[in-house]
């Protein structure tokens, strides 16, 4: 029974990461691109980590997977926020140049 769960979670997780990469290529704006990559990649990694912890089924793996999941869900929005902030600084600079 666990084999089916692990297989479905593994395929779904890698499919979510593939969808994130397709969105990164297809969208035409930096904000839309980050909207595609940040959320879908975090969810795909979450599914892969649940699959690997069900696969090995030892307490150490559960704790390490929980650590990685918490860390990814804390830091992925921070990284996207920082990228967007630097993009806004670039746009401000360009509009200031056009005024001068």
């Amino acid at each position, binding site marked *: 029974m666990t084999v089916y769960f692990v297989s479905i979670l593994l395929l779904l997780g890698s*499919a979510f*990461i*593939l969808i994130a990469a397709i969105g*990164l*290529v297809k969208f035409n704006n930096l904000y839309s691109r980050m909207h595609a990559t940040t959320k879908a990649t975090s969810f795909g990694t979450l599914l*892969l980590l649940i699959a690997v912890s069900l696969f090995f089924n030892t307490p150490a793996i559960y704790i390490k997977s929980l650590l990685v999941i918490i860390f990814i869900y804390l830091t992925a929005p921070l990284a996207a926020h*920082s990228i967007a902030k630097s993009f806004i600084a670039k746009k401000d*600079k360009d509009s200031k140049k056009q005024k001068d």
Partner: protein
Amino acid sequence: MMHEVPEIVIYTGLAFLLLALLLSFVRLVRGPSVNDRIAAMDLIASIVTGFIIIYSMLWKSEFYIDVVIIISLISFIGTVAISTYLRQKRKSS
């Protein structure tokens, strides 16, 4: 105790991740601004963690999860460092 996962499932997952790596590499080469390239590098680090997770299932060795912890730490620090540096540089000039 461990369970047997059919190899076709593991190889299909690896194929999905390989295709994702190719697509994000296209964005890394082609991206119009530096910020697109930083976003693509962030995605590439996540894809590499996915590769290592599936690889640990293929070889049935649970020590690869430590590598995942380290890569997620380093990729976050790298992304924030580069984009904060760019932001400071653009603000000051």
